[in-house]
């Protein structure tokens, strides 16, 4: 009963959230639908905690309309890869919903280097195989996808994941520092646990970074991110 309440509550929260972030709407709403229609996870522990996503380009009202709405939102002018809502098709239909939301896997179980290095590396194929030696999927679709992983592994090929968060050059971002500073993954990457397909929910433009750095009193010295890389 209590769980059910929590469940509904979180669903509502997601909807509210979706309302505030127009582009990530698709992802979220579909998730809600799924969550309501889909089988409730067994045993039903609390769903994955949601943390406020810093969406949009906002910088204390400084960001110009054309930047906020045209360039980024509707991604006119400028690469779609660098705008919100970029959702490339992946070689394998990997669902964070199943892995994280339903099976409670910690982000850092797979993205293990995120607290050790500046890169949050994509997990090695072996990491997938580690479980999927045993886990073969419920339905055929799942089976097929899992089979792909095995094929890659057997062939000794890396899985050609498509990059979702394509960042411009000249930019050094250190995941380790941010994780250690207590920035949660969702703040930048959005409610990944609720995404069937990973998509870019925040603009990740400079003003967007800066506003957070200013709020948290982090350094806004250019050399922190630029100058070397």
């Amino acid at each position, binding site marked *: 009963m209590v769980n059910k309440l929590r469940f509904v509550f979180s669903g509502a929260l997601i909807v509210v959230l979706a309302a505030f972030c127009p582009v990530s709407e698709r992802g979220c709403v579909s998730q809600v639908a799924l969550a309501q229609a889909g089988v409730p996870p067994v045993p039903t522990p609390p769903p994955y905690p949601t943390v406020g996503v810093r969406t949009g380009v906002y910088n204390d009202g400084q960001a110009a309309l054309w*930047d906020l709405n045209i360039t980024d939102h509707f991604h006119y002018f400028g690469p779609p890869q660098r705008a919100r809502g970029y959702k490339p098709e992946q070689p394998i239909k990997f669902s964070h919903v199943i892995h994280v939301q339903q099976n409670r896997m910690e982000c850092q179980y797979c993205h293990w280097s995120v607290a050790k290095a500046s890169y949050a590396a994509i997990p090695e194929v072996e990491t997938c195989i580690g479980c999927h030696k045993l886990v073969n999927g419920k339905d055929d679709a799942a089976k097929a996808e899992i089979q792909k992983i095995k094929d890659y592994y057997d062939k000794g090929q890396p899985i050609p994941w498509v990059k979702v968060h394509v960042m411009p050059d000249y930019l050094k971002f250190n995941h380790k520092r941010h994780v250690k500073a207590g920035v949660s993954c969702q703040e930048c990457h959005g409610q990944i646990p609720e995404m069937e397909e990973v998509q870019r929910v925040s603009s990740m433009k400079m003003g967007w970074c800066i506003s957070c750095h200013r709020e948290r009193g982090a350094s806004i010295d250019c050399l922190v991110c630029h100058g070397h890389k």
Partner: protein
Amino acid sequence: MEHTHNDHDHKHEPPVSYAEVNDTVLKMLEPPGTGWFLLLFTCLFFLAIGASCWFYQMWAGFGESGKSHPIGWGTYITNFVFWVGIAHSGTLISAVLYLFRANFRQPIYRLAEAMTVFAVMTAGLFPIIHLGRPWYALWLIPYPNERALWPNFRSPLLWDVFAVSTYFTISATFFFVGLIPDIAAARDRATTRFRKVLYGVTSLGWRGSHAQWKHYTSAYLIFAAFATPLVVSVHSVVSWDFAMSIVPGWHATIFPPYFVAGAIFSGVAMVITLIIPLRKAFNLHRLITPVHFDAMSKLILLTSGVVSYSYITEFYTAWFSNNTFERFQFWFRPFGEYWTAFWGMTFCNCIFPQLLWFKSLRTNITFLFILSIFINIGMWLERFNIIFQSLTREFIPAAWGGYNFSWIEIGITVGAFGWFGMWMTLFIKYFPSVAITEIKEVLPPPMRNSNSGAHH
């Protein structure tokens, strides 16, 4: 008024009438002949050369221009300063002389102003052309952006952005406002449909009612008042691009007045270069008389003096400062590797103009034309000397270096003249390039009892 009268008196010519002014000037707007088209196409051809050179430079890398380490600035900035300089005389003649009521300005000021506007349009291109990444030029403009960044208001280059854009806006406005009544006059004489529409629109439906004239004249005065300090400020700001740096040969307090004088000098020369062929082509001998040339020659003589004085001062300061680097720099200019540029400049700007002490030469159109060309060259060389000779020999001998001219730069320079020429050519054929109204103003108005008209 007397002034004009006396001129006419000792010319023994009947005074020019309103109607004659109108007709002579509007005659210029008659459908263009082959000569005009030839001119236009030449300009367009040059422009095409320049444009293609610029694209090639952007495509192949900025190294296609002759800059090098240590010479970061070269032909482009030289051209920039040159064209800004040209731009100056326009506003000077139209605004400053207007305030001083110097009546010789009327027949030439419209052309001078057109020249100003188009020259600024040309000059404005070069700071962008000379950028390593021109596609980011807009970062110099303080607009709110997603990077949350603003430009550096302490940088002389940003001052340039303000100064040049303001100068363009104001001189363009001034130019247009001056044009309105004349366009109206043209409209009322227009025959073809195209011209009717063109002038109808551009004259904004000007009628010349007493109220309109009232506001118009007072506004015009205010414009002049705004434009006059602008003339001084803009080239001072340009000169600060150099004076604010620490480069030996740049870092000099004399630069602002020196540059302003130089600007007027080159500007007036350019006016002469343009107005002499125009006068011939459109037979404006009665509007633009030797008197005007004489006046302009005197202006040239004056400014040439000021410029020469500045040159000498530069050397004196270098010697007197007892600063190793300055001293070497000013030894290097006349006696170093690039002495030709220096002495070429000295001849064109200081020695040659001295001939204007002779009245006969001051009114000798052919001579003036040649002289003006020489002065233009000389002033280009002056900027070249300042910018480039200073950079070749700075503080650290190990880092001294030379310059390698590239045909790209020459192409773009030519293109600039094409661009400027194109606008000029179009202008003289479609808009009255001699100020109808203002000439009429200095004419005696038709009076039934004319003795009352002479004095007021």
